[in-house]
C-alpha cells in the first residue's frame, strides 16, 4: 500500500505540469496583462511600460516564460506576486487556515446531517418520510450558494446578535453561516448518495445473517450495513472536501471569508500570473492528496480493495 501511495504521488507530477501549463497558456490568451491593468490606474510612458514588462518577465513567448517559471518551481520557488510583491507560497499559506476551517466545518455539518438522513430514507423507502427527505435534499441541491449565503446574512446575521455577517475574526460564531452555506449542497448530495448506497446494501443476504444472530436492528443498520455502504459515501464526501479545500469562491466572497478561493480569483482578475499559477498548483496538490487519502481509506473500510492493492504490489515486485 505504501508503494501504491508513492506511485500515486509520483503520478501527480504530470498532473501538475499539465495544470500549470494550461493556466499559463489560458492566462496568456486572456486579453490584457498586469501592465494594462496598471495603465488603467495611472498614466505611464512607453518606456515605463516596456520597463515594467521586462521586470515582470512578460516579454518572450509563453513557452519560454513557462519554462523559466517551472525551473524556479522545481527549486521550490513558486514566485512572487506581481501585485503585492510577496512570495506566493506565503500568501497561500496565510489564507489556508480560514479555508481549512470552513472545509472541515462544512463537511462535518453535512456528514452529521446527511448520513442519518440518507440511512433513514433508505430504511423507509417509498414512504412519505423518504420522499419528503429526498425532496428536501433536492431543494438543498438546487439552491445557489451565493443566494443562500445572502439569505442567511439577511435573515440570521442581521437578526441574531453574535453571529457576524462576514469575516473570520469571531471564532466559531463566524464559521456557522459560511459552513451552512457550503454544507447545504454537500448535505444534499451526500444524503442522496447515502440513500442509494444503503438501498443496495439493505437487500443483501448478509444482513439477514446478522439479524438471525439476534442483533438489534439499529446495530444491523448502523454497523453491519453502513460499513458496506460507505465506499460511495466517502468518495463523494472526500471529493467535495477536496474541492472546498481548494477554495469556496462564492461563499468566501459573500461572507468576506479570507480563504484561498478569493486569493485565486483576485489573482486571475489582476492578471497576477505567478500568483494564479502558484495557487492553482498548490490547490491541485491539496486536492490530489485528499483524493489519495480517500483512496487509501477504501482499503481500510473494505478488505477486498485492500487485497487488490496487495496484489498490484506483488505484481510489481
Amino acid at each position: 500500500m505504501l508503494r501504491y501511495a508513492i506511485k500515486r504521488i509520483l503520478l501527480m507530477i504530470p498532473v501538475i505540469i499539465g495544470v500549470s501549463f494550461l493556466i499559463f497558456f489560458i492566462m496568456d490568451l486572456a486579453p490584457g496583462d498586469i501592465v494594462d491593468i496598471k495603465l488603467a490606474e495611472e498614466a505611464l510612458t512607453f518606456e515605463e511600460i516596456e520597463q515594467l514588462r521586462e521586470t515582470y518577465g512578460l516579454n518572450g513567448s509563453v513557452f519560454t516564460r513557462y519554462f523559466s517559471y517551472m525551473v524556479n518551481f522545481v527549486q521550490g520557488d513558486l514566485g512572487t506576486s506581481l501585485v503585492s510583491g510577496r512570495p506566493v507560497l506565503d500568501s497561500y499559506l496565510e489564507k489556508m487556515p480560514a479555508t481549512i476551517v470552513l472545509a472541515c466545518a462544512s463537511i462535518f455539518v453535512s456528514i452529521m446531517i446527511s448520513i442519518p438522513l440518507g440511512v433513514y430514507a433508505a430504511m423507509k423507502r417509498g414512504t412519505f418520510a423518504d420522499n419528503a427527505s429526498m425532496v428536501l435534499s433536492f431543494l438543498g441541491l438546487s439552491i445557489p450558494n451565493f443566494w443562500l449565503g445572502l439569505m442567511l446574512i439577511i435573515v440570521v446575521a442581521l437578526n441574531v446578535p453574535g453571529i457576524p455577517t462576514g469575516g473570520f475574526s469571531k471564532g466559531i460564531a463566524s464559521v456557522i453561516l459560511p459552513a451552512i452555506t457550503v454544507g447545504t449542497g454537500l448535505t444534499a448530495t451526500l444524503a442522496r448518495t447515502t440513500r442509494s448506497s444503503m438501498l443496495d446494501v439493505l437487500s443483501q443476504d448478509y444482513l439477514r445473517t446478522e439479524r438471525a444472530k439476534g442483533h438489534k436492528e439499529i446495530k444491523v443498520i448502523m454497523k453491519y450495513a453502513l460499513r458496506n455502504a460507505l465506499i460511495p459515501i466517502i468518495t463523494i464526501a472526500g471529493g467535495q472536501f477536496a474541492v472546498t479545500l481548494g477554495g469556496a469562491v462564492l461563499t468566501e466572497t459573500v461572507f468576506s471569508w479570507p480563504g484561498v478561493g478569493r486569493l485565486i480569483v483576485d489573482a486571475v482578475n489582476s492578471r497576477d500570473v505567478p500568483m494564479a499559477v502558484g495557487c492553482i498548483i498548490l490547490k491541485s496538490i491539496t486536492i490530489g492528496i485528499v483524493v489519495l487519502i480517500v483512496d487509501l481509506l477504501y482499503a481500510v473500510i473494505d478488505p477486498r480493495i485492500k487485497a487488490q492493492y496487495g496484489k498490484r504490489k506483488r505484481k510489481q515486485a
Partner: protein
Amino acid sequence: MEDKKALGEPVLVVEDLQVRFELEAETVSAVNGISFTLKKGHTLGFVGETGAGKTTTALSLLRLVPHPGKVESKKIEVCGQEVSTMTTQQLEKYRGNDIAMIFQDPMTSLNPVFTVGQQIADTILLHQEVSSSEAKKKAEEMLELVGIPASREGEYPHQFSGGMKQRVVIAIALACNPEVLIADEPTTALDVTIQAQVLSMMKKLRDERQMAMIMITHDLGIIADVCDEVAVMYAGRIVETGTLVEVFNRTKHPYTEGLFNSLPNILNRSARLKPIPGLMPDPSNLPAGCSFAPRCKYAKDECFSAQPIVHQFSDTHTVACSAYARSGFAIDRPQKK
C-alpha cells in the same frame, strides 16, 4: 445412554402457518397452512421443488420473513415460547441463541467487511456473558470445530472458498449452541466431495449437541442420509409427512412418488428418468382443488374442485390426497416394509 428418539420431547411446534406476500399486482401465497412438530435430537427434512415455500417456512420460525410478507399461525412454539407474540427484546434473545439458521447461499451470507472471526465472535458476545477476548477464543474453537484452522480467524470471507464459507456460516449458527438448527440447503452451493464432508460434519455436531434440526433440501439422498422424519412440500403445503421409512418405503402421495421417479435408479441404470411433467402452479394463483392435480396422473374430477382429503396411515404418517377415499387405491410405486 437413553434412547433419544424415544425420549425426544417437542422443541418446536407449528400449527397452521400461513405466509402471504402482498405485492401491488398480486398476492403470493407462499405457505398455506403448514403444521409440524420437531422433537429434541430429531431431524426433520423438508423436500420439495423450488418455490415450494421451504425457505419462507424456515424464515417464519425466526420471524425474518421479509417485507411485504404477512405471517399468520395458530402456534409457533419453540422451546416453550410462542414466537409470534415475542417482543423485540425477546426476539433478539431468541434468535441465534434458541434457534439458528444456516442460510441457503454461503457466498452471500457473510458480511464482506468483517473478519470471519469477528462474525462468529459477535454472536457469542451477544448471547453469552464473556469478554471480547474470550469470545474471540471461542470463535477460534468454533472454526476448528468446523474444520478451519483457528489461525485464519483474522481473514475475510473473500479469502475463503465456497466450502469454507459454508463452514463459517455453520460455525456462526452453532456458536451459541442453539436448541433448534435450521439448515437451508447447506450443501447445494458445494461440489460433491465437499458436500459429503460438510454433511457428515453437521451430523456429528448435531449428535454431540443433541440439537433438533430442520434440513431443507431438494435432494432425497441428503434426506435419507440425515433425517428421522420427512415433510414433502408442494405449493406451500405439506402433502406427505412421516418417518423416513414411511415416506421412503411406504410412499403414499403421488407427488412424492414423482420425486422418487425423477431420481436416477442405482439398481437399474438403464431405466429412463421420469421427471414430473409440467410446473408447480403459480403461488399467486393457486387452483381451487389439489394444487398437484394438473400434473397428477391419478387425478379425478373431485381433485380439481375440492382440497385434498387428509389421510392418516399411522400416528406419524399423514398424506393429503383425495384418491385414498377411493376403495383399493394405490400408487404405482411398490410398497416395501
